[in-house]
């Protein structure tokens, strides 16, 4: 047992790792759009660069040293990711482009194989489009049904008795987000998975918004499948992870057919390679995998508990401050223990897009829009919200700066409106 000290982060030192903050044109950037994508530390960029400059080669196929070096580096990154989420083995880690491709892989490779006519796929009303549309299409292909577990628009929490009501004997899969990118809600996935398993229902967890911000242990959660994106975890673009239990991966069909994922190709029949390569057809994003490994090293070196503690302080402070601004409405849970690193809000009479432009003029980057969660917007009865979201490098001072600018925006627009 390790004892985790409640250390506070040396954010000044951490910010130095992120070249974006030093780039003169960015002029003291306050970056509050981490739920969309994070910045990348020098450590990650250098690891990518090292691959390209020193031992660039294709993986798994070469009979020379750089090919072997590249293969080892890529497979080593896989090991790091397995340890990060405490997978039983790195065979359970499939590299994909991101959370979206991971969910599509599950819907095709598992869904097309195991979902039968009239089966039900249960998702929640707070999912990202990437965890909605693949299931809409699956149920069309398989003549199955899609059902929604509702949330309470007053506090952004899933309806407490929703699971009991929703789970039926024909429910095959529950796919839900660990942390909502539009509401900030942290869902109690461990308990939910436990309840679903009692009814032999397979569970897929969309961890795109949790992996970067809190420790996630797939064995402790007992998640059957879990997905996330590297670019939200300080890693490169174009790389992400599809995790599934080994027995599920063995039972599933591969989805991308081609080089590297096969064992034997005959004219009319082929057989598949072992896990994890069975699911990785074609030359992979080698630099992306290696870069994601470096990102995992980076967060480990700081400590995920510490990052999580730091961000919780930021969320708590932001929730307090935002609620104190007249005309601001905050969505999602108000309890910071139930609230991930993204906070959604609206400001009376000022459209989020106008607010974002206004803040951008003050070098504060926030997101406005539907956050790829149109059903959430419809439920909240707004066309869009503004959203701030945090990473390891954000500070209380930045929130103060944001709040001041927000007050000024309110004043500016109320002059007219």
């Amino acid at each position: 047992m390790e004892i985790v000290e409640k250390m506070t982060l040396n954010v000044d030192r951490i910010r130095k790792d992120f070249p974006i903050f030093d780039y003169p044109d960015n002029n003291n950037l306050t970056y509050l759009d981490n739920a969309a994508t994070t910045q990348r530390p020098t450590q990650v960029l250098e690891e990518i660069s090292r691959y390209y400059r020193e031992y660039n080669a294709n993986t798994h196929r070469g009979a020379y040293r750089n090919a072997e070096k590249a293969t080892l580096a890529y497979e080593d990154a896989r090991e790091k990711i397995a340890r990060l989420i405490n997978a039983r083995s790195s065979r359970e880690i499939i590299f994909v482009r991101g959370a979206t491709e991971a969910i599509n892989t599950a819907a095709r490779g598992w869904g097309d194989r195991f979902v039968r006519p009239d089966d039900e796929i249960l998702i929640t009303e707070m999912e990202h489009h990437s965890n909605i549309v693949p299931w809409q299409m699956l149920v069309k292909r398989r003549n199955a049904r899609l059902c929604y577990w509702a949330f309470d628009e007053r506090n952004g929490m899933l309806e407490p008795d929703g699971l009991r009501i929703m789970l039926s004997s024909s429910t095959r899969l529950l796919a839900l987000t660990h942390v909502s990118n539009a509401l900030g809600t942290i869902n109690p996935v461990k308990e939910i998975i436990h309840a679903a398993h009692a009814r032999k229902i397979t569970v897929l967890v969309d961890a795109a918004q949790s992996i970067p911000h809190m420790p996630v242990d797939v064995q402790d959660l007992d998640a059957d499948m879990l997905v996330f994106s590297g670019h939200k975890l300080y890693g490169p673009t174009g790389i992400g992870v599809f995790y599934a239990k080994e027995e599920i991966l063995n039972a599933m069909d591969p989805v991308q057919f081609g080089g590297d994922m096969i064992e034997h190709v005959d004219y009319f029949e082929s057989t598949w390679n072992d896990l994890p390569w069975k699911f990785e057809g074609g030359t992979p994003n080698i630099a992306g995998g290696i870069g994601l490994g470096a990102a995992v090293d980076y967060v480990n070196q700081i400590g995920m508990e510490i990052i999580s503690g730091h961000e919780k302080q930021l969320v708590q402070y932001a929730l307090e401050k935002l609620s104190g601004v007249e005309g601001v409405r905050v969505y999602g849970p108000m309890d910071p223990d139930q609230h991930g690193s993204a906070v959604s809000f609206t400001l009376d009479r000022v459209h989020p897009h106008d607010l974002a432009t206004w803040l951008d003029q003050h070098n504060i980057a926030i997101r406005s829009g539907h956050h790829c969660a149109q059903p959430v917007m419809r439920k909240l009865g707004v066309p869009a919200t503004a959203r701030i979201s945090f990473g390891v490098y954000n500070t209380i001072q930045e929130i103060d700066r944001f709040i001041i600018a927000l007050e000024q925006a309110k004043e500016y627009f109320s002059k007219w409106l």
Partner: protein
Amino acid sequence: MAIDDLYQEILMDHYKNPRNKGKLHDADLEVHAKNPFCGDEVELDIIWDGGRIKDIHFVGQGCVISQASVSLLTEHVKGKTLEEIEEVIQEFSAMIRGELEKIDEDKLDELCALQGVSKFPTRIKCALLAWNTLKKVVQERKAELEGKGKVG
């Protein structure tokens, strides 16, 4: 790139007091436009008078830029011929995209209030949302009239 270049008084006024807003119940045509990335939506209701727009209204919600832009659009194209409208759309779009060397104030008139958008690339889509839709509508109307031999 001061913020006031973008949010000109005229725009604020159109946002607060939109012109020609609300459904036209006897419209010949009702078209919807949507910006999938920010959720802005606009509906245009149009009554034709041969090769002219006799009346045009809009319904929608969105940011200052998209709403002021569509409000100005309705004022500006009402009563105009298809050719005149195409010309304005062309000129206006070029201004918004920052492609005009010199803005023809006579032609664009009040629409010049949106010229600041060209310096805010993230807002170009907002300003052009309704205009791009109208462009397609005009093209289709022309094709329709040509089919009937009524144009020219």
